[in-house]
């Protein structure tokens, strides 16, 4: 390669702050507080801030999902259908969390290894299909959700735009899916936009939603205590929308390779009933996101069980049994084998275990044991002392009730 080739490449690596906008579209919000990081923030980590708030629900408010079936666990039955536990991770990248210590990754997961659960419910995701488009709800149902959301926010609906799958998808996708509604966007009187997706997920984007002074709401420069204060305020302010009885707020802070935190903000409805709490924590949570100026950018509301079918309660294996499977390579993970210390997971390498329901475009909402395994630090160019924890999943459902499958990590 000649020197001028190298010069051309080096110009391509010019600091992002120098590169002029080409889109011609002005940024709505100005400078990112963490832009000094050169745009290289990374990985996942978590510092949890927990606060229990008695919601100040307005009696006149209704849940956005009020007219959809709400699955409780009052009428339980034993599951008989076999469940496919296979996890599809997408094509590239791997799931890993970086922290200086595993204690930074504490979460308010209502499950802990000391709890002895013999069974847990499993649901079929009715919005799932093999073509990757999460669609199920009718136009009428989606409009109803949007209307209820607008009502909870006390804003008026101005206009509505419908996006069908066929608007962006082509190829060998069945007509039934192509004709389905992917999402509905509703513009509201204060320029708030409410988007309802075909699987019931709601996104609310605000044009400018400034928090009162005294709140520090950011991805990178908010402490654990400040995050707690922000979420106290926001979950109270949006109590009509969330419609939770007992809102449990927590923040999730991840670290980049250079060790900088990146915080996310969540709230879920903590129930006195353990299984309901587990379901709410994993599936029916809400997420709040700040913008570059510390204003509230958007809220995501999740409630996948409103488009799900209850299949029954299934027996689950113990943590010890799951750990045994993990050590024998019977797990699902996107972590490349090269990153595992000595090529094999050891008990000493397991830093943390959780029980979770995955909620990312899955066919079944089913429990997994989630393992945080410290990876070979030599494989990563990280700040001194930083650790990278790879994520490994072992199905929690007793194998008798699982379809035949092949583990990704099978030795």
């Amino acid at each position, binding site marked *: 390669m000649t020197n001028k080739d*190298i010069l051309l490449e080096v110009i391509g690596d010019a600091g992002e702050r120098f590169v002029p906008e080409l889109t011609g579209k002005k940024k709505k919000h100005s400078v990112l507080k963490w832009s000094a990081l050169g745009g290289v923030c990374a990985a996942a980590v978590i510092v949890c801030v927990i606060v229990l708030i008695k919601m100040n629900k307005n009696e006149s408010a209704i849940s956005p999902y009020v007219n959809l079936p709400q699955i409780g666990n009052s009428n339980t039955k034993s599951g008989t259908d076999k469940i496919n536990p296979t996890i599809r991770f997408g094509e590239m990248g791997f799931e890993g969390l970086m922290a200086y210590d595993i204690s930074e990754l504490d979460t308010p997961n209502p499950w802990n290894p000391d709890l002895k659960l013999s069974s847990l419910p499993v649901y079929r995701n009715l919005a799932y299909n093999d073509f990757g488009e999460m669609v199920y709800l009718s136009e009428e149902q989606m409009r109803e959700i949007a209307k209820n959301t607008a009502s909870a926010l006390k804003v008026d609906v101005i206009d509505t735009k419908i996006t069908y799958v066929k608007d962006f998808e082509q190829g060998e996708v069945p007509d039934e899916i192509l004709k389905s509604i992917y999402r509905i966007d509703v513009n509201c009187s204060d320029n708030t936009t409410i988007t309802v997706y075909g699987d019931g997920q709601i996104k609310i984007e605000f044009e400018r939603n400034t928090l009162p002074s005294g709140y520090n709401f950011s991805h990178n420069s908010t402490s654990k205590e400040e995050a707690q204060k922000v979420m106290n305020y926001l979950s109270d302010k949006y109590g009509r929308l969330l419609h939770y009885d007992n809102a449990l707020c927590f923040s999730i802070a991840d670290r980049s390779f250079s060790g900088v935190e990146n915080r996310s903000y969540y709230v879920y409805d903590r129930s006195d009933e353990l299984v309901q709490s587990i379901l709410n924590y994993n599936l029916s949570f809400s997420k709040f996101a700040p913008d570059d100026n510390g204003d509230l950018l958007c809220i995501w509301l999740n409630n996948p069980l409103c488009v799900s079918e209850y299949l029954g309660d299934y027996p689950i294996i113990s943590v010890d049994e799951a750990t045994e499977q993990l050590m024998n390579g019977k797990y699902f993970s996107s972590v490349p084998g090269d990153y595992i210390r000595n090529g094999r997971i050891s008990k000493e390498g397991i830093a943390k275990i959780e029980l979770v329901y995955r909620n990312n475009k899955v066919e079944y909402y089913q429990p997994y044991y989630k393992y945080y395994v410290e990876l070979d630090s030599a494989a990563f160019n990280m700040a001194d002392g930083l650790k990278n924890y790879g994520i490994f999943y072992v199905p929690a459902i007793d194998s008798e009730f699982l379809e035949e499958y092949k583990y990704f990590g099978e030795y």
Partner: protein
Amino acid sequence: MEDLHIIELYWQRDESAIKESQTKYGGYCSTIANNILHSEEDSEECVNDTWLRAWNTMPPEKPSRLAVFLGKITRNLAIDRYRRDRSQKYGGGQAALCLDELGECIGEDTPIEDRLALKELMNSFLSSLPDKNRNIFLLRYWYMMSVAEIAKRNGMSEGAVKMVLQRVRDKLRAYLEKEGVGI
């Protein structure tokens, strides 16, 4: 969709991130690729590869400016393709012209070995330029935009743009010579 949301979709391993990227930045990245390759077909391939590369890098990366982040990926992919095809005289876009022009700024007698040092020098050089000149320089050598396009975008004559580029190149050459790079 806001950039932060798109990045979040990548982090959630939600493949609609690619859809949203295509919607918002497909045209932008196509422009960059086409500037370099001067071929719609090759540019489209580069842009498609851009989403996959972005998928592969987020996480762990969380770009502060998604447009530039994606544009940089497209630029690198297009330059790689340009290099691969250059021996076959394929392409004929702005890359060849840009390379010729940059040849004025740097000698070939001493091969550059320390790219990191050169990168630091380049950033230092860019920070020393007036905003307008820096933008014109980067429109030409980062985006590889034609002189005519730059002139139109900035409301200048092509001659005036060429003059600015010539002056910045002269200044860069002097700067690199002073630092002992690629004499």
